[in-house]
């Protein structure tokens, strides 16, 4: 049975990844999951300098989902290289580093700093809804996506993935902008903006008013965006948003995802990625699929 998939110049041992920001830098979950068994780890979003993030509360449960407003708290690129990468290097999996510049120049500087051994790919986060500088402000503008992708591609030979926001009217334009900029793949969806109000104080729960929705509640929306993005581009698509089971993962692959990433569901079941991988194998067995690539983009419309 062949589980390997290719994205950019990389071959992944299987298509089950973990989504940025939900899996830290791998250390914590390594007591629950054999990291060697993951297709890739998409690490927490990094900024050029360490970032403290937003004041609490930062999380709120909604029906079948969560809203988060972490605001990219992270140790910065240098902190990552010094304190986190050495641990990740010990594992036989691919490390995808999620970077979130506040300016185009910061994206370029980070890409240069990360052009080293142990980092396999960069995921350009132009879609974080919880920060004031950069983030989603870039991701809702096709010209910015194009420009950032092109500038980063110019300084690195690493595989470059552009992470898209679903908070746009027509995802196809944004996926295409990434492809035109030279991206090796697009990943989607980042969280959907939402809000929640305390009815006693009549104040928003979150200091930033808006936060990002993820988890099972967003899956149908995410699936639609992946389907549409795949129709617009010829580069691979990495699908995510609400995946909680092998069936969910297979759905994403059928509509065009070359790989999938699991985010919020790691919180609910820390070993869910292993269950999902096993479930995919079982599906392949039962349906006489010898190569996972046969499933990708196999939708009958």
């Amino acid at each position, binding site marked *: 049975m062949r589980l390997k998939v290719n994205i950019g110049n990389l071959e992944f041992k299987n298509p089950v990844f973990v989504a940025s920001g*939900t899996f*830290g830098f791998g250390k*914590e*979950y390594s007591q629950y999951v054999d990291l060697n068994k993951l297709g890739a780890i998409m690490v927490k979003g990094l900024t050029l300098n360490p970032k403290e*993030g937003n004041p609490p509360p930062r999380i709120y449960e909604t029906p079948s989902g969560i809203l988060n407003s*972490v605001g990219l708290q992270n140790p910065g690129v240098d902190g990552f290289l010094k304190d986190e990468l050495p641990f990740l290097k010990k594992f036989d999996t691919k490390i995808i580093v999620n970077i979130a510049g506040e300016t185009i120049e910061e994206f370029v500087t980070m890409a240069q700093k990360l052009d080293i051994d142990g980092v396999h790919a960069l995921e350009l986060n132009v879609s974080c809804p919880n920060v004031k500088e950069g983030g989603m402000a870039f991701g809702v503008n096709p010209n910015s996506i194009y420009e950032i992708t092109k500038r980063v591609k110019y300084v690195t030979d690493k595989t470059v993935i552009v992470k898209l926001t679903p908070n746009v009217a027509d995802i196809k334009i944004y996926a295409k902008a990434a492809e035109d900029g030279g991206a090796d793949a697009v990943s989607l969806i980042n969280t959907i903006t939402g809000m929640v109000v305390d009815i006693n104080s009549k104040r928003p729960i979150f200091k930033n008013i808006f936060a990002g929705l993820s988890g099972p509640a967003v899956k149908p929306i995410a699936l639609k965006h992946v389907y549409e993005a795949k129709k617009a581009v010829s580069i691979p698509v990495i699908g995510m948003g609400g995946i909680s089971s092998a069936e969910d993962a297979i759905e994403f692959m059928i509509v065009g995802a070359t790989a999938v990433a699991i985010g919020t569901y790691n919180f609910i079941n*820390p070993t869910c990625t292993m269950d999902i991988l096993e479930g995919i194998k079982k599906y392949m067995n039962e349906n006489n699929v010898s190569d996972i690539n046969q499933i990708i983009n196999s939708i009958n419309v």
Partner: protein
Amino acid sequence: MKHTIIRNDEIKSGVFRMEFHFEDIPMPGQFVMIDCGGRTLLKRPFSICDYNEGKMTVMYQVRGKGTYNLSKIKVNDEIDVTGPHGHGFDIFDKFNNILVVGGGIGIPPLLFLSKKLKSKNINIVLGFRSDAFLIDEFSKYGNVLVTTEDGSYGMKGYVTDAMKEIINEADIIYGCGPKPMLNAIKDISEKYKIPCQISVEERMGCGIGACMTCACKTLAEDGYHYKKVCKDGPVFWAKEVVF
């Protein structure tokens, strides 16, 4: 991992004591994450109230749908629990005089702490709005002073009033309770220059240190730093916490 319920009793209106089988031995101040079932998604954090030969006790107050679901769980049912998580209370052999201060549904972890303290002189101050609970259990491990806001039990007033009478004896203070109480305990510890550890609460996602959602503002050299309640805490030195 599935854990079988041994008991789940309402010990006073809206407050439950739940015991279940659990293998991993916890330290006082640590917590577990419990899948409350029903239509909840995230596991909920609960402090460990007691641990005895493979049996763990937590106490919880019904607040929302998660704790409501928990209250309906029956003996021999199974629940999904992870843990023990977090950094608990530090116990120091050098201290003979201990002051334990708790309020309301913040007192459960202090029971497990009091049980583990080996010091000679342990004073325990427990504050409640009205109905007091767990007083007999605490009395096994130290000298208990109770305050209630309505005066229905013990001294009428707040824990801080009761603390003042015995504060001079204390080498260290341990606290857990609502935020305003923790803030008041911190102020007293600073005024009397007594080391103080407090257990704080914040909403959690993963519970293991990966998602950065459980931020607690702490002092740092260059201003402040958000630490993780689930991993750096839930117990912090009071002097580093910024309320």
